[in-house]
């Protein structure tokens, strides 16, 4: 038996291939995203649905779609009324009467009441760092009638509106009473999701880890002002938004290239040049605040409990080298030698030379002076988040060159989250350092910046404790003028560079890729009102 491949066979094969485009079920073209629906690749999977009880940025972004806020920050980071029509502040600065604007309704059509909002604030004030601080000044948070929220303070507090208008996690989203009364330790389910925001959550389409569907809320009444960041009129031009979770960046890239998705929220830095060269695709950075890398020390146990060791390590770290390794292209990173994001109100240069001019020899001297005796220094080394992994490799190498006995323990991020909650000694599974990052919006001032808390037990993991910093944070919150606040921010930075509860690893940016037919994208966190798809 023999096989022959004839010219006729070849022609038949070619015809069959061409014929794929004519098959009755429409094969022959890649599936383009339907018009009116914005198909989005979000940066993470949405699983938890309570944006008040948890801090994940993906949950915050979900919150902005379906919930609304009393106040919001615009692109200049100024706080503007959103659900509120205005606020009356008493002469002694102890009473805030916030009135709701007309036409506010939950997605089931029932009106938004001041009671709903007061309860929502109380719920948020139990979990958010800035909220907890605000509520420590609060005498009562109640309502007067159906449209006025009344906040009574024990002492004047300068950040009331900044707190309830904060941009990033945990955002004080307003919820109906039945949701606002639910303890934060209990879950909000998919069926319960109901806000008063510009989009509605489609619970029946929710596939955790795969797909989340939002539809336009036709009853939403936007403000008259133009949209600006989280503030202004939230005018929706889309029929809906569909988040599709992709586990693989190469497939994400290909799907954007073929038009199967419209919007890729966070393009990895290594793929950004490819996206930039794609026909029909744009790439831009919509988050000018970017992210700030951070190496957090455990201030409770082992060598990292010694301020001298922490100071020596921070003295040795070279931001440029770290950013080159972690991010790569200088288009997407910026050295930033302040504990606040650069080019924002409270960024300053107080004692910045300490980290701006890394000095390995001086670091070795500082380490010797600290009394470090060679005990193991455990680094929780993330392996599944490339930016963190690359940061860690440079940090570990630097520390080893200083003479530190580094035990870099490789693990996935979920394990880091588990391990870092432990206060155990090193020999019982304790740790000395992990690396993470925060969005710039979470670090804008010393109060909103939870990582700056030095309140020991109630501080962020690492449990920093310093009465001076905590005293300055309180002074900042009670300061009467912006100039006073700026001066206090400088003092906080100086003190911080003595204590070094974490190392600042520079600022980096994650651009967004989107198809040519998408316009009207606002600055981050990603907002989906104002966007048009032609």
């Amino acid at each position, binding site marked *: 038996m023999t096989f022959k491949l004839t010219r006729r066979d070849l022609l038949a094969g070619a015809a069959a291939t061409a014929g794929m485009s004519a098959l009755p079920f429409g094969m022959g073209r*890649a599936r383009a995203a339907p018009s009116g629906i914005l198909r989005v690749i979000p940066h993470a999977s949405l699983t938890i649905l309570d944006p008040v009880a948890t801090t994940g940025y993906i949950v915050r972004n979900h919150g902005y779609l379906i919930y609304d806020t009393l106040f919001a920050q615009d692109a200049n980071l100024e706080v503007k009324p959103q659900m509120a029509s205005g606020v009356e502040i008493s002469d002694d600065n102890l009473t805030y009467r916030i009135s709701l604007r007309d036409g506010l309704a939950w997605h089931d059509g029932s009106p938004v009441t001041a009671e709903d909002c007061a309860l929502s604030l109380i719920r948020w004030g139990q979990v958010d760092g800035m909220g907890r601080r605000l509520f420590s000044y609060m005498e009562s948070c109640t309502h007067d009638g159906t449209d006025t929220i009344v906040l009574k303070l024990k002492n004047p507090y300068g950040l009331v509106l900044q707190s309830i208008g904060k941009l990033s996690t945990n955002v004080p989203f307003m919820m109906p009473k039945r949701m606002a009364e639910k303890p934060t330790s209990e879950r909000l389910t998919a069926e319960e999701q109901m806000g008063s925001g510009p989009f509605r959550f489609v619970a029946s389409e929710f596939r955790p880890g795969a797909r989340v569907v939002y539809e336009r809320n036709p009853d939403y009444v936007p403000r008259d002002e133009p949209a600006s960041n989280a503030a202004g009129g939230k005018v929706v031009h889309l029929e809906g938004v569909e988040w599709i979770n992709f586990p693989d960046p190469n497939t994400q890239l290909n799907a954007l290239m073929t038009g199967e998705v419209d919007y890729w929220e966070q393009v990895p830095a290594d793929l950004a040049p490819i996206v930039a060269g794609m026909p029909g695709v744009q790439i831009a950075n919509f988050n000018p605040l970017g992210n700030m890398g951070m190496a957090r020390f455990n201030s409770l146990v082992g060598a990292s409990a010694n301020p001298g060791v922490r100071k020596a390590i921070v003295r040795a770290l070279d931001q440029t080298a770290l950013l080159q390794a972690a991010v790569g292209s200088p288009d997407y990173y910026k050295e930033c030698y302040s504990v606040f994001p650069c080019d924002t109100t409270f960024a300053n240069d107080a004692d910045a030379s300490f980290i701006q001019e890394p000095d390995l020899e001086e670091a070795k001297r500082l380490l010797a002076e600290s009394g470090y005796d060679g005990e193991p220094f455990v680094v929780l080394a993330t392996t599944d988040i490339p930016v963190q992994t690359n940061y860690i490799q440079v940090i570990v190498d630097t520390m080893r060159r200083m003479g530190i006995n580094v035990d870099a323990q490789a693990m996935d991020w979920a394990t880091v*989250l588990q391990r870092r909650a432990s206060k155990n000694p090193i020999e019982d599974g304790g740790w000395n350092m992990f690396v993470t990052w925060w969005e710039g919006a979470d670090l804008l001032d010393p109060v909103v910046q939870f990582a700056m808390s030095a309140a020991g037990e109630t501080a962020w993991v690492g449990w920093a404790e310093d009465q001076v910093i905590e005293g300055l944070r309180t002074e900042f919150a009670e300061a009467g003028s912006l100039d006073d606040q700026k001066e206090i921010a400088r003092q906080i930075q100086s003190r911080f560079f003595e204590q070094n509860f974490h190392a600042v690893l520079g600022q980096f940016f994650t651009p967004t890729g989107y198809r040519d037919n998408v316009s009207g994208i606002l600055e981050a966190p990603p907002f989906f009102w104002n966007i048009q798809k032609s």
Partner: protein
Amino acid sequence: MPLLVLQRLVSTIPVLLVVAVVVFLMLRVSGDPAAIIAGDTATSAQIEAVRQAFGFDRPIWEQFLAWIGQVLQGDLGESLFTGLPVTTLIAQRIEPTLMLALTTIVFSVLVAVPLGVLAAWRSGTWIDRAVMVFAVLGFSVPVFVLGYGFMYVFSIELRLLPVQGYTSPFEDFGAFAQGIILPTLTLSCIYVALIARITRASVLETLNEDYIRTARAKGQVERTVLFRHALRNAAVPIVTVIGLGVALLIGGVVVTESVFNIPGLGRLVVDAITRRDYPIIQGLILFFALIYVVLNLMIDLAYTMLDPRIRY
């Protein structure tokens, strides 16, 4: 036969129990997910509150008994993160995995069995060598390389098929067909290689049997000799491989599901592991174990139909 089925079904109980105990203990050894659920800015007190709310502070044996009690009532628990029942999540995700497994195994059998028979029949010729080269390649090339290769050719260059996604055939068969072709091709390569090799070896062995020579001596046509006599008598190892292939496919499509963004069970279990969503991990592993046991039983029953000499 019914007694055999009953015996085998009863024997699955200790197997599943062992699986349940091992999975439960292995997960608990790695700590609990209270810190992950509580969020990034949670204080120690808040993490502890979550630990108590979800019962992670209870002794392990107590947690196990509570879970196994649920399982015995058909309740695999709820996701720690979404609050959705694990059975609901499995129901949401099983269709894409089953469809991919089905198309893969059907395509693989349709291609591999004739290839294997052909290679055996023309043993030692260039056809045999070509089939074996393909089989080696099919085994050797990683699934993701094949996937990206097919994607590049058919989706990026030719724009014939979509890059990603899954549509139910019950909603839109055309979209389903478009989406399933590349994942099926990708995943099939290894199974075509495997089944073709086994078929070749098995058929080659039977072709040397006396009854084949007798059949040929009686003047039967070659097709009848090959498919009625040789293939049928070579079927037992082939069916074994196909059956095990189906079982492996159910839980082993993770890479293909990831490359082509198919929201199936493979991705569900990987996502659950990265989040430490214990009820989903436990429930899915039990589910996979059950499928494996049932498929093995079905393979055993198929033997009796293919070979009358086999009796249990």
